[in-house]
């Protein structure tokens, strides 16, 4: 393979690796014995500049047409405009997370390790986004997951935190095993590791070997865990609630971006099918439809009963994974674009909502009960207004980007199939359920907004929000609004 080109393509990642060594080195050598808050200040600055440099390197690379259409090592490193966008979005979200990590933790004297693990997991998401190869995807997913397990346990002093991390680790390990077995069967049947070639080989088969069905089942279990699809979602509420909020934000967004790209890759035989009703796409879409249905039901009905904001957002995330699958079942180009668009907009809005929770409740050491946010409009009007934007986008209210995202999913699911006999809107029942569930979704999101914007006296004293945090929050809000008002450039980019 062309080493020079590969180094160029990996420049953002190399920048991040260099930056993370800088973080660790500065902490271990220069800042030995300094005050924790001071270490946080310096190391977080290094981490953010690292990510900014990584972003700039990626943007510079995107100006080089050779680097925008790149395939190295049989799909191990594939760079297309869409993949690059996902990678850079992951870096951007990691940049937001850097600003959210609390600077005065009472529990942990480890500073640089947190930032290093964050940077490493951002690398993992990046590699996932640029991989079209079973082996690389698996290794990248493990890179991401291991970082997340460790970060979840950051707050070792809290029993609940350690318990959630253990749960996450145990179920996550099991799901990785499923994924690996699925990958090995897929490799065993097709003899290929490149996902494109896997898909091409599957389409040459006259009839599907049963082992292939088992392989896809195992793959779905593995990825379903990462995306918190029902019935593999049980870890999500506990982890979101008990992990440090910054980490929960990263799990809800960065990890979701990477896993979605992986899911799209694994489902490629469905997308590539010569006609939409080939046996493999029939198998995949009926499986996905069932998962979509139960995810929407469990996620939305579960979220209704939550009193803790982070748990509620976790269930909301489960529901959103369900919507995402609704868009995917049609296996058309439109659904690919819709899924990518939705997951991007969901990640932005979700990151914003978590960021507000992190800034408000973590600094006060609270567990983010919905009631704690009573009267935010009075004590922190700016924060409350931004939160309104993020949550309304999650509830898919126009003109915010969440609405366009969800509309795109339903739109894709109703696209008439290429074979006319299959009738109008093969998935209209699924869309109908999704719409009913959206009403439920609005109910619980309004309950949250009620605490923030309606009720009287503030429960919490106002929190000082730093300039950097304001900048990232406003940036997220602007993106959420702008992508709703004018989604076309992004849709064009994703196509």
């Amino acid at each position, binding site marked *: 393979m062309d080493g020079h080109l590969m180094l160029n393509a990996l420049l953002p990642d190399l920048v991040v690796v260099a930056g993370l060594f800088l973080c660790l080195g500065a902490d271990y050598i220069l800042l030995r014995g300094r005050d924790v808050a001071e270490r946080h200040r310096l190391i977080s600055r290094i981490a953010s500049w690292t990510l900014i440099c990584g972003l700039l390197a990626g943007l510079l690379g995107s100006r080089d047409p050779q680097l925008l259409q790149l395939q190295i090592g049989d799909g191990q490193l594939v760079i297309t405009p869409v993949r690059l966008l996902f990678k850079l979005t992951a870096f951007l979200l990691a940049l937001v997370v850097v600003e959210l990590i609390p600077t005065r933790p009472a529990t942990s004297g480890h500073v640089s390790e947190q930032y290093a693990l964050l940077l490493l997991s951002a690398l993992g998401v990046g590699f996932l986004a640029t991989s079209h190869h079973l082996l690389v995807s698996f290794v990248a997913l493990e890179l991401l997951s291991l970082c997340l397990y460790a970060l979840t346990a950051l707050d070792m002093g809290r029993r609940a935190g350690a318990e959630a991390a253990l749960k996450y680790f145990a179920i996550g390990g099991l799901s990785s095993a499923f994924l690996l077995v699925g990958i090995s069967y897929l490799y065993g049947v097709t003899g290929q590791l490149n996902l494109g070639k896997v898909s091409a080989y599957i389409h040459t088969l006259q009839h599907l070997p049963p082992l292939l069905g088992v392989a896809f089942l195992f793959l779905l279990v593995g990825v379903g865990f990462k995306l918190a699809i029902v019935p593999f979602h049980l870890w999500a509420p506990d982890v979101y609630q008990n992990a440090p909020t910054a980490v929960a934000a990263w799990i809800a967004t960065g990890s979701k971006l990477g896993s979605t790209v992986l899911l799209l890759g694994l489902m490629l035989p469905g997308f590539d099918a010569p006609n939409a009703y080939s046996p493999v796409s029939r198998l995949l879409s009926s499986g996905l439809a069932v998962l979509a249905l139960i995810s929407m039901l469990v996620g939305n009905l579960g979220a209704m009963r939550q009193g803790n904001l982070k748990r509620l957002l976790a269930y909301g995330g489960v529901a959103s994974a369900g919507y995402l699958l609704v868009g995917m079942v049609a296996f058309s180009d439109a659904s690919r674009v819709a899924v990518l668009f939705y997951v991007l907009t969901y990640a932005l809005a979700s990151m914003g909502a978590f960021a507000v929770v992190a800034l408000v409740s973590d600094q006060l050491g609270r567990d983010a009960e919905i009631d704690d946010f009573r009267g935010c409009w009075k004590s922190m009007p700016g924060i409350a*207004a931004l939160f309104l934007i993020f949550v309304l986008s999650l509830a898919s209210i126009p003109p915010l980007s969440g*609405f366009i995202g969800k509309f795109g999913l339903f739109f894709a699911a109703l696209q008439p199939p290429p074979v006319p006999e299959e009738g*109008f809107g093969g998935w209209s029942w699924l869309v109908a359920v999704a719409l009913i569930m959206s*009403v439920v979704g609005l109910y619980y999101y309004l309950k949250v907004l009620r605490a923030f*914007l309606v009720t009287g006296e503030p429960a919490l004293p106002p929190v000082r929000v730093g300039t950097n945090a304001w900048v990232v929050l406003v940036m997220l809000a602007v993106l959420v609004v702008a992508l709703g008002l004018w989604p*076309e450039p992004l849709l064009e980019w994703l196509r």
Partner: protein
Amino acid sequence: MHALLTLILSFAGALACGLMPAGRARQIRWVALAFASLGLLTALHCALRYGGSGVADEVDWPWIPSLGARLAFGYDGISLPLLLVTGLVAVCGVLFTWELKERANEFYAYYFALVGGVYGVFLSRDLFLLFVFYEIAVVPKYFLIAIWGGTRKDYAAMKLVLYSFAGSALVLLGLLGLYFGANASTFTLQELSQASLSAPLQYVVFPLLFVGFAVLAGMWPFHTWAPTGHVAAPTAASMLLAGVVMKLGAYGCLRVAIGLLPLGAKVWAPWVAALAVVNIVYGALVALRQTDFKFVIGYSSVSHMGFVLLGLATLTQTGLTGAVLQMFSHGVIGALLFALVGAVIYSRTHTRQLEEFHLLIARMPVIAWVFILAGLASMGLPGFSGFAAELHVLMGAWQSPWVSAGLVVLAGAGVVATFGYTLVKIHEAFFRPRVASGSSDKEGLYEPMTAAEIAGCALLLGSSLLVGLFPSLLTDKMQASLKLIVDRLNEAR
């Protein structure tokens, strides 16, 4: 002035009021009044300029080509009266909440977001865009009621918003069905009205769209959000709700469901007519039984919206004219009644229970007479807009092959019931000595109306009288646009 200015002014007003410091209630209300009045002036200017046929001020920009959505705006004879009523009610809503001090900046931010959404629906010439504005108008209602509301505000706000949102979910499903059924890859009204839609598709999609929109128009049995919501809402919001938001639903029924699905409309029209008559009679009878003054008005709104729906169900030129006229008329009069009961009378008596009122005619004579005038207008007394509207509706229903004669007779009985409850309630409110003991209604004369209240009442009553005396001011403008729809209905088979 361009019609889009109404929309831009409203959202600019929301932003401007929202960004002002909360303590400056005085400045905020003047700013709000300025934005609302400019909106009304724009709407008036549009009305004067409108030639009487076709779509005016048409703009059409690409927006999301992959979804077939365009930024297409414009107004015709059907939107015009509704733009006017929106402008009127928006101005009067500000006037009747002149004394608001608590969180005034947020109040007007939500208020103008709602008004902007409403203008947007009436101006959209693209169904996707229309739906976007329709949903924009949902969420501000929640906050307006939940923050500044009264009786059981949490329950009422949540119920109202969930009903609206569930209705819009149906609408969305119907729109998607329409889009894929038409196979034209577009959401614009222009092109969809030329697409050919198969009859079975129309039979399925029509009820989705009609019921989805009619939830907001207060159609029985989906009306229950309306009385509770109106009662809980603060005055300006209940004026908007009754005056304008319910018309969004009726407008959607007419423009989208009937306008685009003529075959579906013909099949379902008898059912719609039956439900509409239930609305009229049921609303009037329930209003008669209410003891809370605001609930009386709330149920009378349900009854009056029944006339709109009946007018729509006739599918004739006369009936549709009546429906649109009734939308305008009820918009103005409903808003006035809510303003009088919720703000003018309540701020003086501090109660809305009819049995606690004590001979109000002697103690607030001017207000009482204004209310009596408004009540007569609501009853449909000749000379007020309600008369012309209901007459058109009943005449249309009589001619219409889709509305059976029995239903028309029942609707006529509904008119009588309206007379009944209006007169009974006027008597109970103003001419009756106190019935209940321990009332908060004190003895003695009440202070007279403030300037803002006088202005608001004059504006609303005046426009009802003007349209009542010269209905052709509005009906002439809408004939050509309605004729397009009626022709489509007649041609379709």
